[in-house]
């Protein structure tokens, strides 16, 4: 089985995984944004590798430039704001919150694992048979966990984007890059961009009205005078 490991594919999978995790758990928001853009570019390399050049182009334009640009725009200082926008997530979450989220993520990963095992029986024999799918499953699990764990709105939006890319990669890995799956992924990329753009505009509106505190999610919203 060792001989069947493809160096290029494995390297790509490892890079995707490392950058996704770095992006999800970096409290420095600007750095996380750049990591997200790097992740999108790597995704487009993955599409190229999977023989979907058009999808690679769509990923660069929509995932890299437009979505990444939206996130960078979210972190630009507002013209009317006295204090600059806070680019660091200081939110602390309690241990009970963390433990429940980790348990949920484990349950979610188990469900995905079961599905994959039925779909691709050769994965059960050797996990490294399809490194990209393996990376996608881990990205989907970790992305879901990060989405549930984080309180900061921008980080949740970023987690959604990483999770989405993981889902697209799983889709392509399981169903090949046939035209219908490429169309599904393209629609998904457009939706992810529009959703991120809407979220970013919303976040800027919120910051404009209430300051950067408003970004810390639902917990702090109760403390604010309404």
């Amino acid at each position, binding site marked *: 089985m060792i001989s069947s490991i493809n160096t290029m594919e494995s390297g790509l999978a490892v890079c995707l995984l490392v950058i996704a995790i770095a992006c999800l758990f970096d409290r420095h928001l600007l750095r996380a944004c750049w990591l997200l853009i790097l992740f999108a570019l790597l995704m487009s390399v993955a599409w190229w590798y999977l023989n979907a050049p058009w999808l690679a182009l769509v990923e660069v334009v929509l995932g890299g430039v437009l979505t990444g640009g939206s996130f960078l725009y979210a972190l630009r200082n507002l013209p009317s704001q006295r204090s600059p926008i806070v680019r660091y997530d200081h939110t602390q979450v309690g241990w009970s919150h963390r433990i429940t989220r980790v348990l949920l993520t484990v349950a979610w990963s188990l*469900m995905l694992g*079961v*599905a994959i095992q*039925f*779909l691709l029986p050769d994965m059960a024999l050797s996990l490294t048979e399809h490194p990209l799918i393996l990376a996608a499953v881990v990205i*989907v699990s970790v992305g*879901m966990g990060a*989405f549930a764990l984080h309180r900061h*709105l921008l980080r*949740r*939006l970023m987690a*959604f984007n990483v*999770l*989405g890319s993981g*889902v697209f990669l*799983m*889709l392509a890995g*399981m*169903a*090949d890059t*046939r*035209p*219908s*799956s490429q*169309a*599904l992924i393209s*629609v*998904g990329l457009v*939706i*992810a961009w*529009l*959703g991120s753009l*809407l*979220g970013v505009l*919303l*976040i800027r*509106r*919120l910051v404009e*009205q*209430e300051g950067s505190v*408003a970004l810390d999610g*639902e917990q702090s*919203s109760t403390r*604010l005078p*309404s």
Partner: protein
Amino acid sequence: MMWRFGLYDPSFDPLWMTHWALAGALLLPIMAGLLGAIFRPSRALPVVLACMPILVAGVLMVIDYQQAGLLRWQWVIGDIEFTLRFSGLSALMLLITQWTAAAVAMYTPGYLRLTYPDLNNRWIWPLMGLLVSALSLIWLAADLLTLYAALEIMGLAAVGMLLLSGKPAALKAGMRYLLLALVGSLAFLLGIALLLSQWGSLNLAVLVELVEQEPITWVAAALMGAGLALKAALFPLHGWLTPVHENAWTPVSALHAALVIKASLYILILLWSILLPETLLAPRLIAWLGMLAIVWGGLVAWRADSLKTLIASSTVGQLGYLMVAFPLLLGPGIAPLPLALAWDGFWLHLMGHALAKAAMFMAAGNLIIATGESSLNALAGTSRRLPLSLLIFGIASVTLMGLPPSAGFTAKWLLLQSMVLTQQWVAVAALMAGTLLTAAYVFRVFRYSFDETAPRHDYQPLAPGMDLIALCLAVAALALGLLAHLPLALLHGGGA
């Protein structure tokens, strides 16, 4: 079951005029929306004129359906197949969507003029147009790619509309809704990915033939079910609904509660009847949650302090009735008679609720505009000063309570009959309890309004037609019960 969704081969091709009607029904709402953004109508008349061609297109399609039976369109663009089907169910849902949305659109100019006279509110029109187009596409779509795209467009347009009021509370509620809806759609997409990789097709009619009961199908059904339940605000996942409705504009809430939530529910029942025919556990689980939803939604509405919270919680409870019907539609060994009764009752309840809930939101919006407050206490004394708005609220709640002769009564009667035939006594009890709870929270509103000792306020006068439009919707919900044979004939026409 599948012929009910029109997933069989049609006998006739659509006529040339039907192609134009289809194009009109799908594209005209967007164009009307763009016109609205440019001209920003401040009276109802231009809106009526813009709605006319859309309604005509819808009626033409229904007439063609009655003549030719199921209509199907199929295009292949670069190896990707797009399929639309116009069945009796699609016809009904399209009509309800277009007429409810037209009523909401006519209500909007007056509402905006009274509440936000100097706000730049051009965005509501294109978003509303986009929403109606996406909804129409959902009722027609017969492949998973179109369904996914339409569902997402609808979701984003809905989020955009809910944010328009611009208050911080609305923005926060909207952000939460946006994040949940986006993640829900990813779960949905993952389900599609599993189906595509296992069965190799996105076409629903092909999937019906291919799908077998095995773990991969169950995981896909679970993923899609979770994503859609989140978007449809089915019971344990309904937390986002109340804050969103509380802070949104009245016409937007009306459209959202009446149609947007129902679209996700429609997709859920469509996909599950393909993926999980004759299963025991999943529909049973939904039904148990539905019973909890009926009780929980009723109790929260009963304890509510503000009018909009009451209506939003009542939506959660009313969706419970539809959830309780799931085992009757999908369960194993259901005899044809109870199945047919439950099927009729399900869609009749969905339509009646759409009309009544839109009317109720509008009536509540009128009361809130007139009194200037959204709490129930502010209703004191309104029975003398605003009898018409209160009457509309009452007629709409007749449908929600399920008193004869409303659509709610007929639908509940059909559902009860089906439940008695299949001996689901717990569901019968839940339906009864729901009726009592609905009566409790509705009469609580009236108790406040009949408070004669209240000091006299100066009430803001309403724009002409605002009460009339709400009254038309409420009466339509009532009449749907008396004339239930008309929509049901259309629903059964799929077999012809």
